[in-house]
């Protein structure tokens, strides 16, 4: 830094060049006939002071949770997948459950979840949608990777419209040489783990008892065209 430069008040950044006028105009509130801020009046109802006139700040506007979105990819890369999940009400003849809140989250292609890490405040691959009249929610995401000890899976938390938990569950993926899980992990760009060391559903501590494949989704598509996942979940609502 040059030693010769003068240190100057930050207001200069506003385009006020001359130093002297700053003292008289900028360091105190401008008083005009229309600006009676600070004036104290005493009357029959006591004393009151007119509020000072300030630049209107940005008013806060109601902002939904960052989870509320259909596309949950953010900065993650991977094979596109569309997830269509339909809720049924077991207490109502398996009719579509409309108006329920569905939270979905899963790991990225490398097996990592979004979480606090240093200052990181991104919530990638986490989303929230409300079921439509057909009980359907749709999320646009990337095909999840896997991590040691778990098979490929999605996490789901279902709430009623007022936010009371109805079900915490997970969704598993079909397996086999021609399955999307195998094809994506062995051929798709960026999915570097392959299937070596993979935990299959039968050995997974969550899905090993799901012999009826109640928690298993249907997955169609290709690496080039992307995949579509379809799954139904029944809850008692």
């Amino acid at each position, binding site marked *: 830094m040059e030693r010769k*430069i003068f*240190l100057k008040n*930050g207001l*200069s950044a506003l385009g006020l060049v001359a130093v002297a006028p700053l003292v008289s105009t900028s360091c105190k509130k401008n008083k005009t006939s229309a600006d009676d801020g600070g004036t104290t009046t005493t009357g029959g109802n006591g004393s009151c002071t007119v509020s000072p006139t300030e630049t209107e700040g*940005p008013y*806060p506007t109601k902002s939904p*949770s960052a989870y509320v979105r259909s596309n949950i990819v953010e900065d993650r890369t991977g094979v596109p997948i569309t997830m269509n999940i339909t809720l049924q009400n077991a207490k109502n003849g398996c009719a579509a459950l409309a108006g329920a809140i569905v939270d979905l989250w899963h790991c990225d292609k490398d097996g990592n979840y979004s979480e*606090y890490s240093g200052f990181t*405040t991104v919530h990638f691959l986490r989303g929230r949608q409300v079921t439509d009249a057909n009980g359907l929610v749709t999320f646009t995401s990337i095909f999840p990777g896997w991590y040691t000890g778990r098979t490929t899976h999605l996490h789901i*938390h279902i709430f009623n419209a007022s936010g009371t938990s109805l079900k915490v569950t997970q969704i598993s993926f079909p397996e086999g040489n021609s399955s999307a899980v195998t094809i994506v992990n062995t051929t798709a760009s960026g999915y570097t783990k392959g299937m070596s060391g993979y935990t299959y559903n039968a050995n997974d501590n969550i899905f090993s008892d799901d012999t009826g494949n109640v928690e298993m989704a249907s997955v169609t598509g290709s690496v080039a065209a992307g995949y579509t996942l379809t799954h139904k979940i029944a809850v008692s609502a």
Partner: protein
Amino acid sequence: MMIKSIRFCYRKIINADAPTAWERLIFEDSYTEFKMQAQRFNQENKYSSFADILYNNAAAEQLHFLTCAAATGYIKQLNHKIPDVQNTLGKTFLPFSNFRFEIINSDVKDILKHRVPVNFYSDVVTWVETIGGTMVLSLNNTVEAGELLTESFVLPPFVSIYAIKQTD
């Protein structure tokens, strides 16, 4: 002249006394989100305080991060300027890009127990010198007509120097 790059941290605690609309929105929405997310770590609904939920399920530590999503939209509305912290002219001036939301305390049955700080970490600014108790800072090292533009600043409560780096 010894020049140092420094970053400030402002810890803004939001509780039931939240005086502004912005704080109120964060308070209420983060409480709603906390109640929703806490159910995952307290599925039998046995505990009501955050401390008890955490004590009985260490995974509930995630609630800091999970609840943060309710505040993100409001923090974006600040347009990267740390709230409340003013220069000696009474203007907010410190830019930030990073923040961290936490839960100090909460209770799924009592919103009045909800206390959530937002820690704002300022971007790097240049500490030029300190005159009396007033720090002279330069935000962008902008030089106009040979003059370095500066901000004057006195450390208020709940603001600390988070990081410091000698650059010259």
